[in-house]
């Protein structure tokens, strides 16, 4: 079991970078991990239930704490939810402790349906007993990987959520001695892809180990690097060229046109349209059971009926 502590966000960064600190505070990354008791989703939904076969799941608020319970009518497991993963753009998954070990909840909350449903990867898991129905045991090595991405484990005590130093290595030293920091805004596309890919999966991760199916639409650095227009050395096609990690992601498709035009303003330009490029060239793809349509970052001329390029 890893020991987890909470601390306030590093206020030192905000002193000199107030705009970034303020806008970042509203991002899903900032809230990638919260103590379950503080989850806005669970506060707004004090009673959540789900039934599948003999099993009935329930998340209910008791004395200010979210309590997860599963029963098959004869036996039951009840545990206090410890951690909520994800801000809820797509959904939220929970960890609970049982007999000294951490488990991933079988059910997650999905924003689109505003209800519980199976956590990705859980639908086909065997549920031969109440323990298996409740959740999946998380090995300490996997726990470390979960918190590596969803928390600022680079600081001690741990800070929940993705904060400044998660990406800006050396921030602590910079605060105390004003030492030089790497200017990520000047980094080439490949470097940024690998930085973001440390959590969102790199091209190498997926190309080597999969998944090679629509399931990989979630892993944007892999999809982007397969695009014909991807150039490892060109900043104009890096993750941060379109997405400011300090701000909430825009869902206005037209807001990305300027990014495309940074390269395509001259020469061969699309014969169909001059706006909303991403609606055609970055089609949405749904992963079965996840109740969310992901934007496919493999930028291409997507023809109707063509199979999803893996």
């Amino acid at each position, binding site marked *: 079991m890893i020991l987890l502590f909470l601390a306030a966000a590093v206020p030192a960064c905000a002193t000199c970078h107030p705009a970034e600190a303020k806008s970042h505070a509203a991002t899903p990354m900032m809230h990638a991990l919260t103590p379950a008791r503080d989850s806005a989703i669970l506060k707004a939904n004090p009673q959540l239930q789900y039934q599948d076969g003999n099993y009935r799941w329930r998340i209910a608020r008791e004395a200010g704490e979210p309590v997860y319970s599963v029963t098959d009518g004869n036996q039951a497991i009840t545990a206090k939810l410890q951690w909520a993963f994800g801000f809820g753009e797509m959904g939220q998954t929970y960890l609970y402790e049982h007999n000294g070990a951490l488990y991933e909840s079988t059910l997650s909350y999905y924003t689109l349906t505003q209800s519980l449903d199976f956590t990705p990867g859980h639908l086909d898991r065997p549920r031969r007993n109440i323990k298996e129905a409740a959740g999946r045991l998380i*090995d300490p*090595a*996997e726990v470390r990987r979960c918190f590596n991405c969803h928390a600022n484990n680079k600081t001690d005590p741990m800070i929940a959520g993705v904060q400044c130093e998660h990406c800006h290595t050396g921030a602590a030293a910079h605060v105390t001695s004003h030492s030089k920091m790497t200017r990520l805004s000047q980094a080439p596309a490949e470097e940024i892809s690998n930085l973001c890919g440390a959590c969102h999966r790199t*091209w*190498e991760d997926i190309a080597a180990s999969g998944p090679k199916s629509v399931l990989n639409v979630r892993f944007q650095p892999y999809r982007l690097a397969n695009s014909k227009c991807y150039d490892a050395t060109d900043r104009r096609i890096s993750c941060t060229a379109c997405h400011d990690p300090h701000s909430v992601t825009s869902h206005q498709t037209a807001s990305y046109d300027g990014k495309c035009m940074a390269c395509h303003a001259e020469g061969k330009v699309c014969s169909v349209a001059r706006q909303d490029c991403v609606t055609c060239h970055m089609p949405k793809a749904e992963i079965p059971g996840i109740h969310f349509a992901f934007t496919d970052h493999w930028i291409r001329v997507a023809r109707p009926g063509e199979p999803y390029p893996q």
Partner: protein
Amino acid sequence: MTHPESVDGLANYGAALAHEGQYDEAIAQYGKALTIAPDNPQVLLNLALSYYKTGRYTQARDRFQSVLPRLQPYSPPHRQISFLLADCDIRLGQYKAAVELLDPWDRKSPDDMGLAYLLGTALLKDKQLDRGAKVIDRILRKGESAESRLLMGTAKLNSLDFTGARDELQKAAELNPTLPEVHGSLGLALLGLSQADAAAAEFRKELDVDPNNFAAVFQLAILAKQEQRFEESRKYLARSLSLRPGDAAVLYQSATVDIASGKLDEGCRELEELVKLSPDFTEAHVSLAGVYYRLKRKEDGDRERALVRRLTAEAQARQPAAK
């Protein structure tokens, strides 16, 4: 009295050393004996056994193969050497060769459960699942045993039913905790269930039972790499390579350990060698592309990445759903 430098003298001395567990010294004596009598079957056999005992399965296999044709077909020594040779093949990942070697014996002795177990292992590892299932049935009809549970677990591992495999293999371990392969296979099932720490513990138990279990040594190397314990990983990889010389998967992991520990040029060179030997090894091309980019060799990186895309697209086109 036997002259100490005669074939018999050297062979006897070698056998005495082997009996004391001094296999390397025994191998040296057998080597001297073979310089005098290169085709002496007893010396060749003893040499093979010493290689086998020390996990040098390629050398052991070569010697067993040279001895086998000189034995009377289907005699007890022929049977013993055939089984040892098949075990070498299995340990070297040459499952088809093991099946071919064991099939005639199985037709001759269908009630030999030791043989059935060995054949079942080779069939399942060679993904001949239907034939493997029939062998498992035969073993199960003889009653519950650790061997039958191990084969069931192996079959479930093959079909990626990690939970089922774990349950079978835990039962096998309860029935016979010293049966080779049990803990190693249980480790693989636990890895499939993302329980890396528990898997590592099982791989270590396997090495207590069988220090030459390739899968256990190799997986411990990968787990150590993932935890950034690179020196430990290198030791396990060196051991893996001694068990399976030239194994592409081991060479690939060695290169990635070098890359992960910052030795980019060395890792790059190793990967370039590897893709020459195994041009369809997609993962090696993937890592090579990555290291080219890190070395600022964009054109090389682009070329490798394009190659990976082509290999992936070809694999997708071969999938039934794509047709």
